[in-house]
């Protein structure tokens, strides 16, 4: 399904050829100190994907990586190699903790052409992969290791570099109501240490620090929420416990933890997460509770085991309030949309990212599904965005880059005080000045409440 989706995305440009997106070939973690002597090399390997690979080949691959890193270290002692480009694939190296190495091998995208005699000819597209995208992905793998996330390498792009958080736009009063709700719940369920609140898979409030939220957000939006989409669609109009007598009708349910609170043997097992507070890792249970489109994460110290009683109490305290709140938010959101919705669909798409609060906004991406993030633009354009981003990273100063891409497309990148904006315009016969004017107009309408230099 994943391949089909990506293939469909590139449909108009691939009439004669078959395209294969980049794919994960292998992923492994090793520590050279664990098997320094000959014959004990296997001990170095902590994790190897795919596991079916023969032992000796595993050892060989790890040995090769070790050698490459050692070798490049002689040229740059403080910054050893980050990636190795070959014709067929690309390897990425990351040492997140001393002597612990994570390696990811990605196959380059392939185009399969028909040669004149009808035989298929495979062409590896070595230049299509962006180092920065995949080394970011690898770094996130380390952060996400605790969440056991699956990788979707066929759909990585600029957003994966940012690792941003999409915030739900909300009016002040509804926001304050949510604040009030969180404070009250934390008061009445006092083992709750941190709370995060999301609506429509977008963040509204995080009690966690920014870096921890970034990882949790990634886990929620790319892994947990997509997995629960199907049951939600099926049971939207039937609250789960509506038939239970004496229970206030509400739509609340646990996404992690017990599925059925009436079952006395229900398991109250929650995923554990680690957050970084004051330089020490803190272990927490993650309870995710959802009513309609509003999801709340409650985090409890791992030393306390939440009981079924606690879950029932949480359900009775949070369920009704969250149901009301969720419909309030929905109502407010629709009012705001109606007020600003009169404008017609603009003829540009953009990606915005603010390094300061990790806020991202994209009109390029469609809703993320469990396996793919769908983009509505051609991969070539996405690659240009990645290239512009690499340019931005090199210098510290504000700058602006305008690129004329194929078939009437223009790509504009702007960087101003830790904010980045990428705009894709499609205007027939537009010139540089007109494109510049369009972007100015966009900034004035979309970003008039922030200090964003033209």
């Amino acid at each position, binding site marked *: 399904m994943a391949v089909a989706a990506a293939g469909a995305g590139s449909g108009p440009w691939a009439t004669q050829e078959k395209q294969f997106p980049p794919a994960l070939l292998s992923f492994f973690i090793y520590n050279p100190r664990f098997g320094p002597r000959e014959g004990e090399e296997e001990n170095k390997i902590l994790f190897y994907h795919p596991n079916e690979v023969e032992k000796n080949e595993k050892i060989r691959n790890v040995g090769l990586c070790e050698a490459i890193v050692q070798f490049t270290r002689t040229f740059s002692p403080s910054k050893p190699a980050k990636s190795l480009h070959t014709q067929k694939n690309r390897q990425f190296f990351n040492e997140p903790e001393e002597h612990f190495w994570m390696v990811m091998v990605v196959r380059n995208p392939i185009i399969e052409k028909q040669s004149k005699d009808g035989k298929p000819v495979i062409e590896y597209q070595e230049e299509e992969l962006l180092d920065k995208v995949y080394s970011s992905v690898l770094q996130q793998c380390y952060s996400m290791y605790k969440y056991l996330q699956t990788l979707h390498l066929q759909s990585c792009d600029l957003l994966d570099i940012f690792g941003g958080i999409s915030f739900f736009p909300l009016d002040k009063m509804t926001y304050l109501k949510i604040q009030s709700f969180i*404070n009250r719940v934390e008061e009445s369920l006092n083992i709750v240490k941190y709370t995060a609140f999301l609506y429509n898979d977008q963040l509204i409030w995080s009690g966690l620090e920014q870096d921890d939220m970034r990882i949790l957000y990634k886990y929620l939006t790319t892994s947990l929420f997509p997995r629960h989409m199907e049951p939600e669609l099926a049971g939207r109009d039937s609250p789960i416990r509506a038939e239970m007598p004496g229970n206030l009708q509400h739509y609340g349910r646990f996404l992690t933890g017990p599925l059925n609170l009436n079952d006395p043997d229900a398991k109250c097992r929650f995923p554990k997460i680690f957050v970084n507070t004051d330089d020490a890792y803190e272990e927490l249970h993650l309870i995710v509770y959802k009513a309609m489109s509003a999801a709340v994460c409650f985090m409890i110290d791992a030393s306390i085991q939440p009981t079924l009683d606690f879950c029932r109490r949480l359900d009775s305290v949070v369920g009704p309030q969250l149901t009301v709140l969720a419909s309030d938010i929905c109502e407010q959101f629709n009012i705001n949309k109606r007020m600003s919705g009169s404008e017609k669909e603009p003829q540009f798409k953009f990606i915005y990212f603010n390094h300061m609060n990790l806020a991202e906004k994209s009109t390029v991406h469609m809703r993320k599904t469990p396996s793919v993030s769908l983009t509505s633009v051609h991969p070539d354009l996405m690659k240009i965005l990645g290239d512009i981003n690499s340019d931005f990273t090199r210098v510290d100063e504000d700058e602006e880059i305008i690129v004329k891409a194929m078939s009437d497309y223009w790509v504009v990148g702007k960087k101003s005080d830790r904010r980045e904006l990428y705009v894709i315009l499609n205007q027939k016969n537009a010139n540089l000045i007109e494109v510049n004017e369009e972007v100015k107009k966009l900034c004035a309408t979309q970003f008039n409440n922030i200090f964003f230099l033209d």
Partner: protein
Amino acid sequence: MGEEDYYLELCERPVQFEKANPVNCVFFDEANKQVFAVRSGGATGVVVKGPDDRNPISFRMDDKGEVKCIKFSLENKILAVQRTSKTVDFCNFIPDNSQLEYTQECKTKNANILGFCWTSSTEIVFITDQGIEFYQVLPEKRSLKLLKSHNLNVNWYMYCPESAVILLSTTVLENVLQPFHFRAGTMSKLPKFEIELPAAPKSTKPSLSERDIAMATVYGQLYVLFLRHHSRTSNSTGAEVVLYHLPREGACKKMHILKLNRTGKFALNVVDNLVVVHHQDTETSVIFDIKLRGEFDGSVTFHHPVLPARSIQPYQIPIAGNGFCRGVSAAVLPRGCVLTMIFGSHIKSYLWNLQVKLEPIVNLLPDKGRLMDFLLQRKECKMVILSVCSQMLSESDRASLPVIATVFDKLNHEYKKYLDAEQSYAMAVEAGQSRSSPLLKRPVRTQAVLDQSDVYTHVLSAFVEKKEMPHKFVIAVLMEYIRSLNQFQIAVQHYLHELVIKTLVQHNLFYMLHQFLQYHVLSDSKPLACLLLSLESFYPPAHQLSLDMLKRLSTANDEIVEVLLSKHQVLAALRFIRGIGGHDNISARKFLDAAKQTEDNMLFYTIFRFFEQRNQRLRGSPNFTPGEHCEEHVAFFKQIFGDQALMRPTTF
């Protein structure tokens, strides 16, 4: 019972007067709240004391027989004395007017005067057993002019001075009451109404006793209060007070029933819009507040006592040389707002005002929402409410967040009502309605209006200082107050936002702060933007937040330029000012200084060239004028780039 438990007390300064005896007659006038002590029919002196005035009025008058009733008109202008059942005598107390007495006989033949009431400084009503007569007194002519009269059989009457309404009891059962309203020379008859008498044994004739009726203004509305005694035939659990609302227009309607749950003798007072019911047998009192939520049965609201019954706080009167003497006999004058107790001490009697003490009530009423409803209606409530707020945020008596939210909501509801009234008044004044409409009055700010500065000064600023408070709670309370203000659409003052920021910064909760700012929970203002700028060294994103805020204010462009220049972002500052079209008025020297400081020669060149071009455009020459004080920069430019790099004047 601890002393702090009494919630009713007597006023500090009672009116003191000689005890009534055969030679000394004592009268009380409710309208002016004056006590008259008449000795020997006035021949040996009349002393008039009021609760407010320190200086008693004393005078003599001829002893023309026993005095039945004596009252001053409003403002003590004219004295009226009733000595016979047919006539009332008058005496002017206006300077330059004759002080000779003059007399008015009632007009109705064979009628007996039951009493009289002053309705203004020169208008008086005679109540006779056959009706009422309304007169205007003409002091300079020493005569009276009949304005209006009405005939009907009267058993007894009652007068409520605040609302100028006289209530007449008619019919055999005495239970049909006829009200009259008086205003500026007019007398209007209001619809009569009947008091339902409780069923009584057949042997006794039921009738409405004057003692069981009172009239009082409660929350600006006139009520007739009827004390319905417990009857054995009905299954009620005790006596009740029935409140009949007497509107200016329209019929009288039974509105409230106060359940006393006791039997025996009672006396009523209205103090600070509370109905106080004293029970003689137990010597305790209870209070009722008709604005508090009661049980509504579709037509009448039933109320229970707000608080458990308590005695009035005992008052000890110091007597020289003899220690203290406690009052022995007490009597309550049933009607009106004044409770008078006559303490049978050795020689003196006292007239007191009854007061409600609010502090003890705080601990007697555990439901904080109800407590707030109660306190907000009281006259002297401000400090007590503030202390309740402080208390609920204290470590020992900490209330839960929903309770705190309720209290804030109630405060802000009152606050908002006042703000709205102020605003519509201001708008009416602006529209010039003030002259045309006499009804337009500036809204009175009662003590129940607690604004943000009150809450900040007396409650929140001390609360956030408390080290032992968990910061989570502190922030939750501050956010709850801000939420409440927003809910009532009250603009939040910046010092509250500063309090939030201060607390968050103290606990290194910068990311929370960032989120609050992102959702504009903390409103934009220049002080706030400056505060954020000062936080940059602790939290780098504060710089961006501050700039965003200044941008949104749209009145802070100068500040934005200053901020950028201080960060050596000279080009950004210049682009910004050009973007808003202000680049023709900026000081070249300021920008050149900043550019020079960066030690980036190319940047200096760019900035210098920009101003040369501006000079060219504005003045036709790229040179700087002496007034711009850029000589050193020109010299610096020449030194780096050489003379030939200067822009040549273009000639047309």
